[in-house]
């Protein structure tokens, strides 16, 4: 691989040539050995090698894929810049291989007004990062859950949809209005499905682990009843406003995904995403286990094989929705495979040590996850739970489809000659050890610190410009 005249982050990639790599192009559905040439920021050539020339190239080495798209990040600016800024968040995204990110509006003040969006955009521009920062607007004014935010003005200003993420839209009546009003604007409502009356003080998935650890239970039904409510309202709205769309983010339970599966089968305009941590971790980690969810036994204390490897109650694992049972993680993976889940979204939620290095029950919810997402997803690929192509699709074309028309004028994520280069290059054969201090994110709240992950990111190019390049050893 050679990068020529890539001066630094933000600079146009004058000349990039990668030969003899494994290309994954979810737009065309094609993958195989080949190479890519980028000149002056534009993909000049994508070449596919036939078998005779492909000797020694497989999908376990250098991989070239379209840049990843994250539907769900928290960059904390304005209001909590100690936890993350737009600039540090974009750097973290590039370090994770993401070239498009969608910022959640639960900042302080909330992004419920075009002026806040203008500030975020200015910060993105000032950062010099070529990673594309899109934004969700708030559903309700001030995210207070009482009345609609300035949805029309926000739409005109360019938000990609609306979400009160961090909390659900509290009343069914308001969900109906929001879906209707946003639908007429051609934009989705992104719902954080949580019935707050069932989760007051809740700390951990309501189940065996929470019972033993004495943590307040967070029932699956708190999520599922909110999903069911929205899915009951949606067809009634669609009758009036056919363009209405619902996206359910960070679904975490088997029951929620079943509801979405049935709604999709009935033809409802609903999409959903799942997070890397709900796919690959489980509530057993709260007990001190660190096995991937597919290796979990359902009883971290009782399996007699020493599952417990670290102290319990690590506050880095406190997240909303909570880490669920291994069977729920399996349901999340199944949903990706059968198309019920449209995307993997990180719910990257950086926090300061002041908010996170406290008692489990007092800790802020969230995992700083955008830089470890690929490694976690590749662990599933390595375990043959997902193909590499499925993983890449869930990180690229899947989320782009959710964005629909707001994806923008660019072609769908793919390796397309003549288009601005938007690619990530990673080495599946190279492992790296997660070190909180080495993360580009200001949020050091990762439960993966010290863990070795596969798939070191070598290069991220966004819109023809350099976003991240690994230091060469």
């Amino acid at each position, binding site marked *: 691989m050679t990068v020529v005249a890539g001066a630094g982050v933000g600079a146009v990639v004058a000349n990039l040539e990668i030969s003899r790599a494994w290309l994954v192009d979810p737009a065309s559905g094609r993958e195989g050995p080949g190479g890519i040439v980028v000149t002056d920021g534009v993909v000049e050539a994508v070449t596919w090698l036939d078998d005779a020339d492909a000797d020694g190239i497989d999908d376990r080495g250098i991989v070239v894929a379209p840049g990843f798209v994250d539907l769900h990040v928290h960059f904390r600016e304005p209001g909590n810049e100690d936890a993350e800024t737009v600039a540090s968040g974009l750097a973290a995204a590039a370090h994770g291989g993401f070239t498009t990110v969608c910022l959640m509006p639960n900042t302080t003040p909330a992004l419920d007004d075009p002026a806040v969006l203008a500030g975020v955009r200015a910060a993105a521009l000032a950062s010099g990062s070529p990673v594309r920062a899109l934004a969700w607007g708030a559903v309700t004014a001030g995210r207070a859950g009482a009345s609609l935010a300035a949805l029309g003005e926000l739409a005109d200003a360019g938000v990609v949809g609306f979400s009160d993420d961090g909390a659900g839209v509290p009343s069914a009546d308001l969900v109906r209005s929001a879906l209707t009003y946003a639908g007429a604007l051609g934009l989705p409502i992104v719902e954080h499905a949580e019935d707050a009356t069932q989760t007051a003080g809740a700390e951990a998935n309501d*189940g065996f682990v929470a*019972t033993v650890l*004495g943590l307040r239970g967070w029932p699956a039904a708190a999520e599922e009843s909110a999903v069911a409510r929205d899915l009951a309202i949606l067809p009634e709205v669609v009758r009036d406003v056919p363009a209405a769309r619902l996206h359910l983010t960070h679904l975490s339970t088997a029951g929620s995904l079943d509801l979405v599966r049935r709604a999709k089968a009935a033809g409802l305009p609903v999409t959903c995403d799942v997070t890397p941590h709900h796919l690959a971790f489980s509530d057993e980690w709260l007990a001190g286990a660190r096995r991937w969810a597919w290796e979990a036994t359902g009883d971290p204390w*009782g399996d007699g094989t020493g599952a417990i490897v670290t102290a319990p109650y690590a506050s880095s694992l406190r997240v909303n929705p909570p880490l669920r049972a291994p069977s729920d993680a399996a349901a999340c993976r199944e949903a990706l495979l059968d198309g019920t889940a449209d995307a993997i979204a990180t719910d990257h939620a950086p926090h300061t040590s002041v908010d996170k290095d406290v008692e489990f029950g007092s800790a802020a919810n969230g995992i700083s996850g955008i830089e470890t997402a690929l490694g976690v997803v590749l662990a599933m690929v390595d375990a043959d739970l997902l193909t590499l192509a499925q993983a890449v699709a869930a990180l690229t074309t899947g989320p782009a489809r959710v964005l629909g028309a707001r994806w923008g004028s660019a072609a769908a994520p793919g390796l397309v000659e003549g288009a601005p280069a938007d690619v990530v290059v990673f080495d599946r054969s190279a492992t790296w050890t997660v070190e909180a201090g080495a993360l580009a994110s200001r949020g050091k709240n990762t439960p993966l610190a010290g863990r070795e992950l596969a798939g070191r990111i070598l290069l991220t190019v966004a819109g023809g410009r350099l976003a991240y390049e690994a230091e060469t050893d």
Partner: protein
Amino acid sequence: MTVVDGETQAAAFEVPIVDSPPEAQQVGWRHRHLLDVDALSWPDIELVMRTTDAMREVLRRPITKVPALRGRNVTILFYEASTRTRVSFEVAARNLSADVVNIAAATSSVTKGESLVDTVRTVEALGAQMLVMRHSVSGAPYLAAEIFSGSVLNGGDGWHAHPTQALLDLYTMQARFDDGSLAGRKVVILGDVLHSRVARSNIWTLTAAGADVWLCGPATLLRGFEAWAGRGAADGRRFHVTSSVDEALRDADVVMALRIQKERMAAGLLPSLREYAARYGLTRERLAAARPEALVMHPGPMNEGVEIAADVAAGAQSVIEEQVRNGVAVRMALLYLLAGTARS
């Protein structure tokens, strides 16, 4: 946790001579902290029990004080109101000649001011070598143990664990049975199991001891325990969960009533204290279903007339005061054993 069945095995340890400093003893205690009982093996528990015997002997002397922990700083940091446990730890530490520092931190100071991490670093800088801690958040002592260079003793955390209570309960029961064993004995924990750290810790020690453990209370206050019972606790040993008080008390050897709190009504878990007392209160009539010599226990503080009738609490079968007395000896034993492994 490993479990020793039936017959008492030959002791795998020496009972320490508790008049001497713990460092001099080779008693096979390897734990630096006491955060929960689930980390203790059965030999560990036996060592605590026999060391408690030695401490009971000290408490029978005219002067109930030994110099074992002289010059050692025991800091008692309670984020929750408590009288009995705090005083019990304090008396235990003083009986061992430790220097005792008492800090009563309001829970609000955690969220409004100094963090737990800062507080622990501060008390360590002020000389704390052993930290006895109570906190309303489950798991808080594990955070303290991560940063404190001495020993942390959990004096109760949230709903999670109350290891010294479970050990003093075990000691009290063993002392009352002729063969000193709980194997096969039916032990009933009656009341608000869901919110009880006493119940959770007792599940581990009692299943380890081979007892036939029954949890009983209104179904709303047993949420989640059926799943645990099916998987088992110590060494995978199963226990029973029922909301039928008659089934639970029938032929019981021990009945331990738990405190019921008014907040449970506000949370919609119980209709009223009156209804609770009528359906689950430990009365003489109910106790008659248990074995005639059955022990009555309560971790305190009691709501007499609610979860336990006054005449039962003060009756011949009650060992509630013994629990309190044994609590001092058990805490002396634990302070002593942990002092032997604490980093100097």
